[in-house]
């Protein structure tokens, strides 16, 4: 996926106002099937996989035994005993190796087949408020309509004589769909979507817009808000950690962290004045200053929707509540900012 096609701001605003098309073929796909697949996945991932009915997906985290995030991913129960995980490109090998290791230690793991299908599968995301107006045109052979899917649902559709998986999910904060298909038909699917969406203002969108869109709605990006030394609780993802579901990898550490309280937390912030955009790594200071920074920016950019600098950063827990005055150090100068409730941008 290129950084941009026509310009980051133009592509970003197309997704917020109409529709954007992303090539997300770099993402990885790992399947798990077999009688014990559900129990295994439930023991390896933080969210409650038992809650998934066939045709449904959930956001979840793969933790190491220290509660750190090996990856964050989407788990789909495509059919009864057939699961698909969509994982970050940079984490495919690490995820697959760790899952295989967990599977080897899992009682009854012999009934589960794990496969890394990242080479043979590709994917696109079509996102924005106008997508529901044209996506059904791409699957005329199906009795079911893609627009009948509810948020997080997934189903098989026919395209170019092949089965593709369509889910109502995305990484932009807008309504939209992600489509996983064989690599050999992804270009035809891309072209078909562009044609179907032309009248609605659909534009190809790149990695730059993908990042500004997700930052505005505070979705984490692996390597920025999550890594092997950061727990999902610290990253503000407690909603996706089902501590009550029984044991899973990392649970002991996470339960202890929850009981003791967090010392650092992820906070969203908005610059208080027009400034250079905050960038990852910039120190965050308390309003009073002090000898040491209270944290660091993990993601930051100029918000195309709001026209001001925004970001996410890990701070000492007492500074995380919304509406705390802070300062972002930009090239040696502390620029005033304020923590805000997540998401930073919400459709009005």
């Amino acid at each position, binding site marked *: 996926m290129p*950084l*941009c096609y026509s*310009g*980051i*701001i*133009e592509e970003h605003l197309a997704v917020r106002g109409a529709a954007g098309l992303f090539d997300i073929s770099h993402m990885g796909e790992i399947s798990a099937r077999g009688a014990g697949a559900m129990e295994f996945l439930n023991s390896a991932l933080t969210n409650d996989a038992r809650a998934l009915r066939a045709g449904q997906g959930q956001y979840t985290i793969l933790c190491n035994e220290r509660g750190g995030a090996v990856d964050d991913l989407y788990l789909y129960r495509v059919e009864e005993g057939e699961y698909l995980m969509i994982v970050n490109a940079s984490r495919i090998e690490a995820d697959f190796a760790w899952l295989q290791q967990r599977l080897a230690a899992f009682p009854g793991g012999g009934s589960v087949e794990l496969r890394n299908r990242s080479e043979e599968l590709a994917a696109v995301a079509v996102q924005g408020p106008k997508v529901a107006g044209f996506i059904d045109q791409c699957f005329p052979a199906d009795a079911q309509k893609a627009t009948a899917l509810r948020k997080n649902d997934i189903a098989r559709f026919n395209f170019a004589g092949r089965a593709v998986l369509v889910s109502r999910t995305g990484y932009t904060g807008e309504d939209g769909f992600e489509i996983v298909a064989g690599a050999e038909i992804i270009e035809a699917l891309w072209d078909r979507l562009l044609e179907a969406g032309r009248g609605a203002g659909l534009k190809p969108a790149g990695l*730059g817009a993908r990042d*500004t869109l997700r930052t505005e709605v505070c979705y984490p990006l692996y390597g920025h808000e999550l890594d092997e030394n950061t727990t999902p609780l610290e990253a503000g993802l407690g909603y996706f950690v089902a501590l009550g579901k029984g044991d899973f990898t990392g649970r002991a550490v996470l339960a202890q962290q929850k009981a003791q309280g967090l010392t650092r937390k992820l906070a969203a912030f908005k610059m208080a004045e*027009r*400034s*250079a*955009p905050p*960038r990852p790594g910039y120190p965050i200071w308390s309003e009073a200053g002090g000898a040491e920074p209270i944290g660091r920016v993990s993601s930051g*950019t*100029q918000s*195309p929707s709001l026209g001001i600098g925004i970001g996410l950063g890990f701070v000492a827990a007492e500074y995380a509540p919304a509406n705390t005055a802070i300062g972002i150090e930009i*090239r040696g100068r502390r620029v005033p900012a304020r923590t805000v409730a997540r998401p930073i941008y919400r459709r009005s």
Partner: protein
Amino acid sequence: MSAIVPPELKYTKSHEWVRLEGETATVGISDHAQHELTDVVYVELPAIGRKVAAGEACAVVESVKTASDIYSPLSGEVVAVNGELAAHPERVNTEPYQGGWFFKLKLAQPSEAQGLLGAESYARQIGL
């Protein structure tokens, strides 16, 4: 995208342009550079009165994606900056050679300008 390279200006390898008028030089970034940077959202300009050496980083241009240093093409004293860019940084994209200028220098050594690239050399550098 074919970039515009006005023939009357001088250029640097780092993509600044220079308009020479007597002992004053106006500096900005080239059309090619603004295309590469994509949407400019903020420009940090030098203080008026600052003395800069040729090749010294003295301004920062920020796009959505990244921050880039701008180098003074020549030695001299900053005598004016484009304050309009504070409210309208996008002018660096829309009119890089007009409303998107960055700063003006009173040159310390006007002969340094002989070391700048002409429009033809610069156009070759960027593959036009």
